[in-house]
């Protein structure tokens, strides 16, 4: 356990050494937030009801989903594919540590840093714009929200690792990976609330793991889910974590069988 804590600390320090790159990344995220906010603000100014959401509802959804996305989507696991292709993985296989736990430790540092900066950015955002945001004051809802975000982190970790393990079988798998990341971004609810989609489409999406990365968490925050919906959502989320963990471990073992340490 101590070694993984040290890995987390090292990753934190590493990110702060390359400050300029990180700051540019955060500036980019802040610009995205501003542009999305203004777009939705003007769309909902003209049309007071957007598929059942009023302006404050949609803005709250947008801000919370972006914040949750900052936490859940920040990951170092995208480097796994190139480490496999370049043979760098060999260095880790020879060490007395679990490669997947190593990356989870790195992810924790990355997420902590991103959330810290996101909080500062949101403070600036709120003080400048005073958006029509609904603050959740129910402590139970907030606790359930935090729990759902933490489970979302674990689910996304396995999804991201699984996508990166394509590196065992393909040197140039960035195309399918790209399309996968884009699609996840779309159907996780990070761009718009998924319940604006037709009911049949939404019903199918609810069975997939992706809405439980962003959409489920944001709806909990907004207090728009009943107790049974929350219970069902958590059950589906936990089942998917189990499934993705199983598939990832299977792919990892299969990948190690074909790994040739090319480049080393």
């Amino acid at each position: 356990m101590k070694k993984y804590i040290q890995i987390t600390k090292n990753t934190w320090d590493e990110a702060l050494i390359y400050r300029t790159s990180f700051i540019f990344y955060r500036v980019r995220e802040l610009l995205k937030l501003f542009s999305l906010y203004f777009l939705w603000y003007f769309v909902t100014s003209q049309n007071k009801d957007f598929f059942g959401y009023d302006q404050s509802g949609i803005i709250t959804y947008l801000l919370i989903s972006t914040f949750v996305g900052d936490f859940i989507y920040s990951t170092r696991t995208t480097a796994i594919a190139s480490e496999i292709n370049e043979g760098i993985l060999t260095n880790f296989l020879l060490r007395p540590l679990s490669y997947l736990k190593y990356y989870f430790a790195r992810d924790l540092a990355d997420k902590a840093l991103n959330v810290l900066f996101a909080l500062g950015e949101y403070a600036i955002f709120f003080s400048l714009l005073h958006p029509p945001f609904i603050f959740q004051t129910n402590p139970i809802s907030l606790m359930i929200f935090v729990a759902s975000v933490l489970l979302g982190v674990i689910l996304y970790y396995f999804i991201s690792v699984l996508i990166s393990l394509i590196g065992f079988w393909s040197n140039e798998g960035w195309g399918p990976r790209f399309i996968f990341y884009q699609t996840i971004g779309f159907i996780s609810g990070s761009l718009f609330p998924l319940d604006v989609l037709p009911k049949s489409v939404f019903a199918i999406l609810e069975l997939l793991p992706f809405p439980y990365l962003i959409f489920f968490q944001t709806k909990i925050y907004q207090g728009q889910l009943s107790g049974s919906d929350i219970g069902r959502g958590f059950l589906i989320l936990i089942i998917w974590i189990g499934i993705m963990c199983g598939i990832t471990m299977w792919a990892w073992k299969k990948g190690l069988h074909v790994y040739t340490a090319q480049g080393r």
Partner: protein
Amino acid sequence: MLLRELDSNMKHYIKVYIRILRINFSEFKAYRVNMFNTFISSTTWGIFAIVGPLLLTSNVTMVVGWKREELLILAAIQSILIGIFDCLFARSLSRLPLYVERGQLDSYLIKPLNDQFLISLHKINYGSLLRSMIGIFFLVYLVNAYKIHVTGLGLVFGVITLLMGLLSLYAIWFISMTLTLWFTRLSNISDLLYTLRGISRYPEQIMKEVSIYVFILFFPLAIVVARPTALLLNKMDNNVILVSFIFTAILLYASHRVWLFALRSYTSASS
């Protein structure tokens, strides 16, 4: 005599550029998997660039004076512009920080060609043209589906201002990438530029509504796509063409001057 020299220079650069296009096309064909990946990513970008506005405008009839179909046309034209920009310039310019960091810029500076020309155009991404094609297809569909009346003059002015928008975007991009000659750690500046470029898909009126300072700050990006679209749809006076022309000329000149000034700081370390 001067004209003859200019003419001969122009022919020489055209020949060089045709050669660059051929080399890049051979490379594109040679790496099949990469070609396939590029097609996938371009198609994905093209589709999502249109699905987003479709969803956003599904429940509204007008935003800041733009009707739904006009906003969709704006998205389609943005796709066309971005596809062409990514094809011609993006790949070349995104390599500049790498060349500066590794001292590889020397090999471009010592060649008997204009270095800005070479740095800006030596890499072509043919796969990005697919995004432009999706944009064109969607544009034609929208014009037919909504029976939008496009005049010949509107089309000509739209294309002219779109070309000027392309050159303006290039100049902004080039100036920003030139900063890496001073600040070598700004290697991910192109990521920031991609995000800023996304602002061009919104009507400029949105920025004016937010704040005049925001509009002034993002003015170049605001007009890159919005003005050609407005001219195509006869939403704007034709004399904006002159303003766009002057603005583009200033930006291109500035990009050249900034580049020459920045080269003084290039030390070719680790080459």
